[in-house]
């Protein structure tokens, strides 16, 4: 399968790989996918004053899954929570030019973003 330059770049030089402290109130974690399906994404964001100041990921999966989550962290950094909610799987699949059989990787990335945002919101609501 021929992949786009952008996809290969994210796969070969993944941005923002790593983990944050799940228990930190400013950190939201999204863990989506399943090992038996062949892909699992963990995406984390750190939110302060409604702004995403950092994002990290770890992904088990094919090259498209790794690239989709790498791209997602890059886009998330610096965005407000409301702006982040607007990121759609189609934005990711278009940017990386994902082949049709790999569209589910971008769907997974969108799910991970939403789950991380929900997580941090519920934590901060509890606090407030």
């Amino acid at each position, binding site marked *: 399968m021929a992949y786009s330059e952008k996809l290969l770049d994210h796969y070969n030089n993944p941005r923002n790989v790593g983990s944050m402290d799940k228990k930190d109130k400013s950190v939201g974690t999204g863990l989506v996918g*399943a*090992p038996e*399906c062949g892909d699992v994404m963990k995406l984390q964001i750190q939110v302060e004053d409604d702004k995403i100041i950092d994002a990290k990921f770890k*992904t*088990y*999966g094919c090259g498209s899954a790794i690239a989709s989550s790498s791209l997602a962290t890059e886009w998330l950094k610096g965005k407000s929570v409301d702006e982040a909610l607007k990121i759609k799987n189609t934005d990711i699949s278009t940017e990386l030019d994902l082949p049709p059989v790999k569209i589910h990787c971008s769907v997974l990335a969108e799910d991970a973003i939403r789950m991380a945002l929900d997580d941090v919101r519920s934590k901060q609501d509890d606090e407030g």
Partner: protein
Amino acid sequence: MEKLIYMDNHATTPMDPRVLEAMMPYFCEKFGNAASKNHAFGWEADEVVKNSRQLIAKSIGAKELEFVFTSGATESNNLAITGVARMYKEKGNHIITVVSEHKAVLDTCDALTHEGFEITYLGVDENGMISLEELKNSITDKTILVSVMHANNEIGVVQPIKEVGAICKEHDVLFHTDATQAIGKVRIDVNEMNIDLLSMSAHKIYGPKGIGGLYVRRRKPRVRLSPLIHGGGHERGMRSGTLNTPSIVGFAKAIELADKELEAENERTSKLRDKLQTALSTRIDHTKINGKLDARLPGNLNISFHYVEGEGLMMAMPEICVSSGSACTSSSLEPSYVLQAMGIPDVLCHSSIRFGIGRFTTEEEVDAVIEKVVQSVNKLRDLSPLYEMVLEGIDLDTVAWTEH
């Protein structure tokens, strides 16, 4: 990119230059049609086809007239199974095969269900082996054919073909074997093994693509086939079409070389395989070798690297040409049905890589592959949330995953 390393010799093999050399005169100079009975060009082609057929047949203990040329093992499997089914349908409508067969067998059997045939699929154990008991118990008075592959293309396991042949003979059922992966690596004698039909293909043994053949027993019993391709009545009516002389010459040369070098080549490739296997399973933790260790083809290593995904791994080492049982490498988005049939969990199927070492694989290449695989698995495990969880002591089976 760095120099490519080809380690996918179950998929296909490079042609041996000696094979090409043998074929060369049969394109532009000795181009006759073997069916032209009335001039020298035809006689020349007919003669070389006859010699080639004899040589190939002899390599499996068969007679010249028992070997039919086809376009490859896919066609041979189709001809053997559909040909027997249609010819013997008055006798019975039951066929037995195995879940881990090549698609050319499975899909042919499936197609026959639309013609009223019933198929029994034997299971395989965790090592990929069939059970002879299950085979015996599956034979009924309606069974006309048993098709069991000799060696598997994914995990390389070699089935007990002689025992299967004996059971089929005892029950008076025809026995077909897809020997595509076994030829050139396992010595075969169709009489000793009671094989009635045997499929092979030249491109798996350093010969040209698009040529193969089917052994069809002529005596005790005489097997008859209903043809799939109709026309000029070539190949004693079993497979019409002008014979592909250059490829037939190449096929015979490939068989001749494989036969001559079989033991030496097996010794060399199994040494290289063992080196690869030992290095990968000692330098990388959490690996699993798939397939029965002491009944594999010498050049085969099918290994799962837990917590990394096969296609992702192949992308990390683009200069290494191998294949994977991961869903992501198949168009169906299902992981390997062969590994699944062995009861291997899906997660390990997704993590599997098949290495196929062949005649032209060098020790330097094996060394380079070891380094690159170790490096790539480590890189992807640094990226793997699963590996991280395991290191933290989390049992992955207790996590509430969001299946999709």
